[in-house]
């Protein structure tokens, strides 16, 4: 186990390094420079001062090494767009909202998604199955940028049930979390249903049935635990997707999260911000995937952490 974890840790670091390198040089390829506006009228000497301040006067490989060193110390640089804000401080400021929204929506998605999936599987090919699956499918067919403004307009404004936006009290959380959860509900419901059906056809369930166990016992005692395994494996990527995918919802419901920061940093060519946020997101993704694998191992006794996956 320890061996496995160590090995994974090393891979994680290598992966992160590759991502940092790729993003760093990709940024150098992007057209334009972040001083575009200022540079036009600044005398060359002042421009040189400005460049020196951001370390842009050195050869690229030196900038790269410098950047690696800084990242290793947890310093992602200073935003070009907001020279008084460091990337780390922006993350500290904006990420909590995205994280909270992501977690809330994930909880909603898991509860509703798994329930739909289980009901659909237990009532296989009956109307409950069809309606559960149609609900789920609608979830992946309607883009969140249609659903979210719709919720804001009707539930928020016209009917006045919940606030149409802003990030103040608990009542502000419900609409965005739900809007964000819908797609995930669908994925989880379908996965859970397929997995339940697969388990239901296995011999030991037949054995359990023939022993005369009640359906309830079979479902809770035998099926759920086994059926949930494949679902756990995709939970990692899903969680990351939810947390990084908050962009649309943040935009519509006016939530001060990280998703919006990312897009605005791209449109303003804020290099340090783009690089920093990409690395940050990648790090989350890697860590979450790692945790999922560990969790998978803990739930499934058949998997031994012996190295290769």
């Amino acid at each position, binding site marked *: 186990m320890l061996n496995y974890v160590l090995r994974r840790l090393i891979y994680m670091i290598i992966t992160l390094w590759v991502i940092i390198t790729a993003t760093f040089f990709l940024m150098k390829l992007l057209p334009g420079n972040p001083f575009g506006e200022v540079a036009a009228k600044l005398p060359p000497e002042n421009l040189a001062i400005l460049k020196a301040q951001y370390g842009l006067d050195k050869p690229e490989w030196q900038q790269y090494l410098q950047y690696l060193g800084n990242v290793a110390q947890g310093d992602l640089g200073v935003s070009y767009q907001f020279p008084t804000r460091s990337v780390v401080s922006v993350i500290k400021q904006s990420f909590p909202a995205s994280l909270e929204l992501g977690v809330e929506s994930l909880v909603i998605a898991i509860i509703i998604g798994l329930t739909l999936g289980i009901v659909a599987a237990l009532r296989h090919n009956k109307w409950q199955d069809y309606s559960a699956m149609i609900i789920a499918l609608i979830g992946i067919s309607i883009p969140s940028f*249609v659903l979210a403004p719709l919720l804001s307009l009707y539930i928020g404004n016209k009917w006045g049930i919940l606030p149409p936006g802003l990030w103040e009290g608990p009542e502000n959380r419900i609409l965005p979390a739900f809007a964000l959860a819908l797609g995930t509900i669908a994925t989880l419901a379908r996965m859970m249903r397929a997995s339940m059906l697969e388990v239901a056809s296995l011999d030991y369930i037949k054995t359990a049935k023939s022993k005369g166990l009640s359906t309830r016992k079979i479902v809770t005692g035998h099926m759920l635990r086994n059926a949930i395994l494949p679902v756990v494996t995709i939970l990692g990527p899903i969680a990351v997707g939810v947390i990084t995918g908050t962009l649309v919802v943040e935009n519509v419901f006016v939530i001060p999260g990280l998703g919006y920061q990312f897009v605005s940093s791209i449109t303003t060519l804020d290099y340090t911000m783009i690089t920093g946020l990409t690395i940050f997101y990648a790090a989350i993704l890697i860590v979450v995937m790692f945790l999922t694998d560990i969790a998978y191992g803990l739930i499934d006794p058949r998997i031994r952490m012996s190295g290769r996956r």
Partner: protein
Amino acid sequence: MESLSKDKFQPAEKTTNAESIVRPSLTYWQDAWRRLRSNKMAMAGLIILVLMTILAIFAPMFSKFDYETQYLKDIDLKPSWGHFFGTDDFGRDLWTRVWWGTRISLLIGVIAALIDLVVGVLYGGISAYFGGKVDNVMQRIVEVIYSIPLLLLAIILIVFLGPGISSIIIAYALTGWVGMARLVRGQLLLVKEQEFVLAARTLGAKPKRIILQHLIPNVIGLVIVQITFIVPTAIFFESFLSFIGVGIRPPMASLGNLINDGAHYMRYQPHRIIFPTIVFSLILLSFNVLGDGLRDALDPKMRK
């Protein structure tokens, strides 16, 4: 004992054809088709998709209007016999634009899926077939790519490449093939270890035969199913890019930018959002139910 006459030992007459195969012999594909046909949801999805494709191809051809000419006197008309879906804020016929958009969106989805297919299958196949060191290195690469937040990378790429259909396809394909590669490799590794492959090898089957007769058929179902999920994902991806503002170049239409434009007018011009969203959702829905149906139909284990 002699009393037993030979007569009593007449060979029994064949009365029934117990050995004959009652069910018609079906190839894998015929069988899959038979099962798919019995799946009502999947068939409905298939029919809708065919219908949508036909409309996407022919509706703009037979329309009096084109997707770009502006009729500034006919702005924001509600749906009518002259304009089935109404007009937009430039007086352009929405019926024509929606089907143009469908055409573009489907095109993006299909091309993206084809690229994914070729790259992903080759990569996954090579990785699984050679195994060992090659596999190890190739898998590390996949892991790294998989760990990059794809959406973010794609956005950076689009900004880098400039907006347009080809940029969108490239951005999607560059990041999308990884899932396919992982899937193909996983399935191949699984199949490779199974008894029937071992048996074939023991019987002296050549690698070519093993690949063609055993490996490919066992992977192809999975790949087809995966494609039915990639197409809608790519269409969704395009619409998302439109939302961020880096999608298709105006005045070209795609379902993504029609919906996104429409969303701004949701309050006062609901027809602007309703029609493209319905078409978009139907396409996504159909691909998904069809994919589910295909998964069941192509799974050899489901054969009865």
